[in-house]
């Protein structure tokens, strides 16, 4: 159709221009000064809005930093164009189509849910617009060259945490709370189970819950009845908090271990003491992460929102930094195609709060692993064997 021809023409002219520029100016130059718009499909409302807002705020911090420090080039500024999907796939698809056809949009970023990422990726490909996925953890989402992901695939961190727990706590009887309707969380739990069982611990219970559940008295009773000395809770955020609360309320005093869903400060405000001392693994945490970039990010976030950023904010931040980094390598009038190629070829994200974020074929690799827990005063510290 027409669209295709138009973009072919732009592509050709872009190639000509690049060639021409390449001949005229072999030395690297920044892209033309001016404002470039980034389309962000957010989850500011809907069932996972709490995480969605963190991603959004992290992205806002990145834009401010990039614009003030000129990280995307001299005189180059970015502006976010936000469309809230409410975590509804149809709305996300409409938003992506609008971004794709809006010539003012240079790149896009999206998606906590893998389902939505899968739905918008083909649109990014067919509209030839770079899409940086944050949040969604399903494997093989990136597609050369337009779709990239700044989310490391889950697994290695859980394995690292499980190895340490098995070595230090030497659990004998372990109960697992699994997600019955989230395959990624289920896979993470299975990865942990494999490591823990290898250390000689027996699995005494596997209890399945659903993401929309709210009452966990039954599962908690069932879990405690097997008298475990370690309980693994690997589910989405609301159930995780609910299960831990129910376990503690029913008087379970053994060790519980869970995932980074526990890290947002809002969760501590909600649950307080109930969740103190429970280890979880992640790559970024204010108070623990101390790289220069992390500190700068935390300070800026704190100044802006009067709160500490969580791991989700860090990912939103990184998605934009990744785009800026790609943009910086271009010169002249940047095109979507050149930007996509530059981003696909990136081997690490320079400005990141993790202390290093390797990239490979558009897919982020697992950075460092921090095993942390909440303290009574509402801080997150490195976890120590109690």
């Amino acid at each position: 159709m027409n669209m295709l021809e138009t973009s072919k023409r732009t592509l050709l002219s872009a190639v000509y221009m690049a060639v021409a520029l390449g001949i005229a100016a072999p030395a690297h130059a920044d892209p033309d000064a001016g404002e470039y718009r980034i389309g962000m499909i957010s989850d500011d409302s809907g069932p996972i809005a709490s995480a969605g807002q963190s991603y959004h705020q992290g992205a806002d911090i990145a834009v401010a930093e990039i614009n003030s420090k000129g990280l995307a080039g001299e005189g180059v500024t970015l502006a976010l164009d936000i469309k809230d999907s409410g975590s509804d796939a149809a709305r996300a698809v409409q938003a992506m189509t609008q971004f794709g056809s809006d010539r003012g949009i240079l790149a896009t970023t999206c998606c906590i849910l893998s389902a939505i990422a899968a739905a918008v990726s083909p649109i990014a490909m067919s509209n030839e617009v770079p899409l940086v996925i944050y949040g969604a953890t399903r494997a093989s989402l990136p597609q050369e060259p337009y779709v990239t992901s700044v989310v490391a695939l889950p697994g290695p961190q859980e394995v690292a945490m499980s190895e340490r727990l098995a070595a230090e706590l030497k659990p004998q009887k372990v109960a697992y709370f699994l997600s019955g309707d989230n395959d990624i969380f289920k896979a993470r739990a299975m990865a942990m189970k494999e490591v823990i069982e290898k250390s000689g611990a027996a699995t005494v219970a596997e209890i399945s819950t659903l993401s929309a559940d709210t009452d966990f008295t039954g599962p908690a009773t069932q879990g405690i009845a097997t008298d475990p000395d370690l309980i693994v809770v690997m589910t989405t955020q609301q159930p995780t908090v609910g299960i831990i609360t129910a376990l503690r309320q029913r008087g379970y005093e053994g060790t519980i271990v869970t995932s980074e869903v526990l890290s947002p400060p809002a969760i501590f405000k909600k649950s307080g003491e109930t969740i103190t001392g429970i280890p979880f693994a992640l790559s970024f945490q204010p108070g623990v992460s101390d790289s220069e970039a992390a500190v700068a990010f935390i300070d800026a976030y704190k100044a802006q929102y009067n709160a500490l950023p969580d791991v989700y904010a860090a990912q939103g931040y990184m998605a934009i930094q990744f785009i800026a980094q790609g943009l910086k390598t271009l010169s002249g009038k940047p095109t979507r195609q050149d930007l996509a190629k530059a981003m696909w070829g990136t081997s690490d994200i320079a400005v990141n709060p993790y202390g290093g974020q390797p990239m490979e074929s558009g897919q982020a690799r697992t950075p460092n692993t921090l095993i942390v827990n909440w303290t009574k005063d509402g801080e997150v510290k490195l976890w120590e064997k109690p």
Partner: protein
Amino acid sequence: MTLFLEQLVNGISLGSLYALFGIGFGLVFATLGVLNVAHGAYASWAAILGYFSVDYFGVPFPAAVAIGVLGGGLIAVTVDQIGFQPLRGRKTGMLGALITSIAFLIILDSLAGMATNHQSWAFPSSSFPSGMVDLGLIRIPEMQIIIIVATLVCGGGIYALIQKTGIGAAMRAVGWNAEAAALSGVNPRIVILLTAFLAGATSGLAGVLGGAATSNISYMLGEGLLLKGFAAVVVGGFDDVRGTVIAGILLGICEVFVAQYLSTTYRDGFTYVLLLTFLVARPRGLFGSRDFMRA
């Protein structure tokens, strides 16, 4: 044995919430002929109002419950008067009221999402009875006892109101035939307002108590209750409060045991298949009256 008994209590408590929520849903359907999908939003709002009153004003828990119940009732009355009242006397049937209630579901849920910033909150554990009661063989959370007692009291009270009082007779009459109700001498307007308020208030009570017990105050709280409460009402019989209470509790028990002994994934399926079976094979429910049909 201890596990079995504890799970039984868990089931009864969970089912009580469904029942408490379902009472008002069924009452509105039987009396006013409205299939009100916004009924869940009353529970969400009641829980949110209760939480805010604790979080911002530090009121004690019983006061927070009262605020939630009152809030739920008032919202229900407002919805009824804005949305359902104009439809009465028009030939829109169930469809009109259903659409209006979808509109209110969208509006109230969106507003609740804004009010809570789309996050889930919880009553601080120090602000409500979050301890355990030791009954020797088993230990039960205090909230479960409160929920079960509240359901029995509300169910009994509303049953007595409907069966034993003049206004209750008028409520039943409206369900059967609006003209007959007018003849009974009770102002139908009062019957409507009272029914709406009772429905909102019981939904609100279920919302606040459920929100506290499960540490989950969110704009989506009502949605889960709505589907299960709906099932309880259908299985119990639309025009019978006792049926709703018994069916709700049975559903709760079934859910807990199906999840424990079979699988969580079949738990919801079990409930809904039961629901469909009753709709197709025994539409008047376990205890509904033989001739009851909403015209």
